[in-house]
């Protein structure tokens, strides 16, 4: 499939933004200035971006606790995200959600989610909205190998098939649910699970943007055409711990280093587009530089932004009470 | 039945009443009363009303103050002096036993007439059509925020030998909530449509408050349809109106806020019960009700004054008219009844507020009956 030049540039920028955003958070978190929990998406960029490159603002996604990448891929504004993670009033959630609850419904981003398996039922609902309102949109649930065992996820696979919803279930399988390997925690096969619920199963290499883009494009087109849900199993690797501060004593020495060296989605993307003559290396360098500046100014702005006020504590519990 | 013992039973005021509370005897036991004397205050679900003695005699109380009893239950007897206590006791025992039997035999009594929603030229109106006879029919027109139950003490009394129709104006009660422009002319047009639908050529109009302005507008638009006007505290005869009432009625949304607003309506504030307030709150919760009231108020009372001067309808002199007004009316001042042509009978009732037809139901019924005779 031919990918438009603009799409390639936008996708690279999106992946680079996620990478820099997360690497910077890794550094900043260590200074103690960022409150709460942070779960980084480094190494998985091609998955979120490859999927979301097939979506519009009208389409809905639901994310996970490891949600920064999905947010950026879906177009949530970076400065607002950074301010949110710093707990500032200028954050996308006014400093009341934090890293695990970044959402922007105007971008079809139904939220990162602190509950493993929280997203798939919500995505059934979003898909039901799209189907009922006949707006041609689809809904995509990102969920991990850990969440793949949650009852909510399995129920949602069933419900989406029963109702023939325009939904895609993107299983981002990074091999670990927290500190436990998926080879231990996931019985049977994901393929058999999809087939058990009567939906098509697809899989792809999550470090290859083109593979993800291609597979997600087919899955989303299938759902959008009214043919019911699809499971897309994306294989990838997590470069950091479950959360920042996780020493990853459960992973073999060299596992992460190998992933960084041999399976960096950004490197793979650069090689591919430059060798094929699709983009110039300098164009990518320019993006790298622009993103570096954007992240830098986002961090500076976040650190200077006002903290929430006492009145914010009581605001927005209800629309009206 | 012993002719010298007259049973006094819980009266039925209005159609929905199934029981009443004896709020208080107004006559001591052993007192001789004549027919028409006030015997007791009876609290209905809506409002407290004086119950007048149906006969003459000496009162013996059976029910005590504060008791709630079903309609028809014995509350006292009127006796002539020569009846022995034993006979009275026997009478009471027999009556009570028979009443108990009747109550058990449910369904024997004919169902009371219920209002029905009818189609009036594409508009759903709730109508209560009572009585029959050859005399010219009466149409009852309630006021702002009211409904056909405002006539609960008058409707059947007036329906003696004639048809009497009460209806909910658009925007009110069980009628459609679209009020068009919300002015008297609009409502008069609807009332004419109602006359057409019910095949009534000409009717006496008995109208209250804003209903008075509607009746005047109707008489102005179609004098041939109006046999006479009996106007109770009518709007349209002067500019002043109590906007605290109008605005409060529109905005109040709970017992605590509506009760003081309703108190403007009557002279004796104790007449306003929580059931009456609750019924109004229930009406106001209906989809479109508050919008309708707001529209009417904006059109009829812009800038806190009545927009329509309908006095010319009366000065024209071609329609027989009666005007009744409570001296202590706090909504529309009684002085608006002055300066009318001499042919218009004006009756001012002392110690009465804006709701004479409820506050002095019997007097009003008699006055109107006499006026129509």
């Amino acid at each position, binding site marked *: 499939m031919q990918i438009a030049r603009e799409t390639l540039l936008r996708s690279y920028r999106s992946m680079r933004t996620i990478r820099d955003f997360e690497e910077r958070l890794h550094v900043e978190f260590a200074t103690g200035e960022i409150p709460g929990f942070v779960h980084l998406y480094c190494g998985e960029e091609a998955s979120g971006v490859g999927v979301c490159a097939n979506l519009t603002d009208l389409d*809905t996604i*639901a994310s996970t606790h490891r949600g920064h990448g999905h947010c950026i891929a879906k177009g949530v504004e970076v400065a607002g995200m950074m301010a949110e993670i710093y707990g500032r009033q200028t*954050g*996308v*959630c*006014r*400093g*009341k*959600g934090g890293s695990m*609850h970044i*959402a*922007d*419904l*105007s971008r079809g981003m*139904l*939220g990162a*989610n*602190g*509950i493993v398996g*929280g997203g*798939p*039922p*919500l*995505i*059934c*609902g*979003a898909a*039901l*909205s*799209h189907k*009922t*309102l006949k707006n041609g949109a689809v*809904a995509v649930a990102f969920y991990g190998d850990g969440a793949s065992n949650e*009852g*909510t996820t399995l*129920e*949602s696979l*069933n*419900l989406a098939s*029963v*109702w023939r919803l325009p939904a895609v279930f993107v299983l981002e399988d990074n091999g670990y649910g927290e500190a436990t390997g998926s080879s231990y925690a996931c019985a049977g096969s994901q393929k058999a699970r999809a087939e058990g619920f009567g939906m098509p199963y697809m899989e792809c290499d999550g470090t290859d943007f083109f593979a993800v883009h291609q597979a997600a494009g087919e899955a989303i087109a299938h759902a959008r055409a009214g043919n019911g849900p699809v499971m897309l199993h994306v294989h990838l690797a997590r470069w950091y711990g479950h959360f920042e501060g996780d020493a990853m004593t459960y992973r073999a020495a060299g596992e992460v280093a190998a992933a960084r060296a041999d399976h960096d989605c950004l490197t793979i993307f650069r090689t591919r587009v430059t060798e094929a003559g699709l983009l110039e290396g300098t164009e990518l360098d320019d993006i790298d530089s622009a993103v570096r500046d954007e992240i830098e100014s986002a961090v500076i702005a976040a650190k200077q932004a006002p903290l929430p006020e006492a009145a914010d504590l009581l*605001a*927005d*519990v*209800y*629309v*009206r*009470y | 039945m012993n002719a010298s013992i007259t049973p006094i039973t819980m009266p039925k005021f209005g159609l929905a009443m199934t029981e009443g509370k004896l709020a208080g005897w107004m006559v001591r036991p052993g007192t001789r009363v004549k027919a028409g004397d006030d015997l007791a205050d009876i609290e209905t679900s809506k409002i407290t009303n004086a119950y007048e003695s149906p006969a003459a005699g000496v009162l013996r109380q059976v029910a005590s103050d504060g008791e709630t009893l079903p309609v028809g239950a014995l509350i006292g007897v009127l006796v002539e002096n020569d009846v022995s206590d034993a006979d009275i006791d026997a009478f009471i025992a027999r009556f009570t036993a028979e009443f108990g039997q009747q109550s058990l035999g449910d369904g024997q009594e004919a169902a009371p007439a219920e209002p029905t*929603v009818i189609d009036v030229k594409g508009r759903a109106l709730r109508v209560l059509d009572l009585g029959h006879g050859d005399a010219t029919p009466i149409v009852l027109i309630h006021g702002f925020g009211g409904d056909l139950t405002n006539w609960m003490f008058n409707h059947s009394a007036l329906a003696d030998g004639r048809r009497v129709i009460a209806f909910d104006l658009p925007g009110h009660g*069980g009628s459609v*909530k679209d009020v068009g422009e919300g002015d008297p002319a609009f409502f008069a047009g609807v009332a004419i449509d109602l006359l057409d639908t019910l095949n009534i050529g000409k009717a006496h109009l008995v109208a209250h408050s804003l209903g008075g302005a509607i009746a005047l507008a109707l008489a102005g638009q179609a004098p041939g349809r109006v046999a006479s006007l009996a106007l109770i505290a009518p709007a349209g005869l002067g500019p002043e109106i109590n906007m605290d009432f109008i605005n409060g009625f529109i905005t109040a*949304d*709970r*017992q605590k806020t509506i009760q003081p607003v309703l108190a403007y309506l009557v002279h004796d504030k104790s007449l306003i019960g*929580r059931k009456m307030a609750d019924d109004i709150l*229930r009406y106001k*919760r*209906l*989809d479109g009700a508050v919008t309708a009231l707001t529209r009417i108020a904006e059109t009829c009372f812009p800038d806190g004054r009545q927009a329509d001067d309908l006095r010319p309808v009366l000065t024209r002199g071609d329609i027989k008219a009666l005007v009744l007004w409570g001296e202590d009316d706090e909504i529309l001042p009684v002085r608006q009844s002055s300066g009318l042509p001499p042919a218009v009978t004006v009756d001012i009732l002392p110690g009465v507020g804006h709701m004479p037809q409820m506050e002095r139901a019997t007097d009003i019924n008699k006055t109107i009956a006499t006026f129509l005779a």
Partner: protein
Amino acid sequence: MSKKSFRQAINEALRQEMRRDPRVIVMGEDVAGGRGGTSGTVDAWGGVLGVTKGLLTEFGEDRVLDTPITEASYIGAAAGAAATGLRPVAELMFVDFVGCCLDQIMNQAAKFRYMFGGKARTPLVIRAMFGAGFNAAAQHSQALYPLFTHIPGLKVVVPSSPYEAKGLLIEAIRDDDPVIFLEHKVMYDDEEEVPDEAYTIPFGEANLTREGDDVTIVAFGRMVKLANEAADRLEQQGISCTVIDPRTTSPLDTDTILDCVGDTGRLVIVDESSPRCNMAADISALVAEHAFDALKGPIRRVVPPHTPVPFASVLENLYLPSVEKIEAAVKAAMGHRVPEIA
């Protein structure tokens, strides 16, 4: 206006709102029933107790959705649909089943708006039946409104009669926040006059079903009926009661409760839910904190014991608040000033 049952009032509210707004949909287990059955009958049940009967016929399969028996996915779907443009009314059948889907209510729907900095609206209604009196035992009889009341972001409605149910349900459907609407299963055949037209009763405004001088009784749902019966009996004995039906436990009309306690100086709370951390406990704390000086004696709570709901009638009757228990509590609240009752 005509006499309607609690069941009919709820059905009518759903029907009128579905006619009024195409975004309103109904979903749940067997809300129609019959799909996939061998008889081909559709709308076989209309809900397990027939409350949604006939909706499928009028509004079709796209707006009346039978779900698999998977509460987590369909309650979560209702939350997701509400956040993305629909106004779902999801039926949880028995409120006890909330154990299967609490996350979707407590961590998702209730918190979207706050977590997302005020950018979400979740116009979701979850209907469920609750309460004991049907010998339905421990897993089908609980009165769990305190559980939901505890969760910020939810509104909780406990209607006490057919009139109340219709107006409060329409209000719930038009509300932009998630609302838990709890129907006492023993009340479905209760009847009273209910307007044919649509109307709304605002949340957070208590209804005084009667006003008296001696004792304030606060009661919820079906308990309002029992409290009124007790108040009738007590009036014959010279004790006059105010009965407050708060209508919603969240928001709670604390002003009315405090005003009435200020007037009567005595408080009895009738609550069918388990006694620890229930509404009776909450309101007791409220009054103790804000109206302590007005109290002429201890607050009395008429509540079940801290046990699961039992099965056998004799035990269930012992478990539940009753007119007699309320009457006794009011007399106790009156202390030695109560006239001796033979």
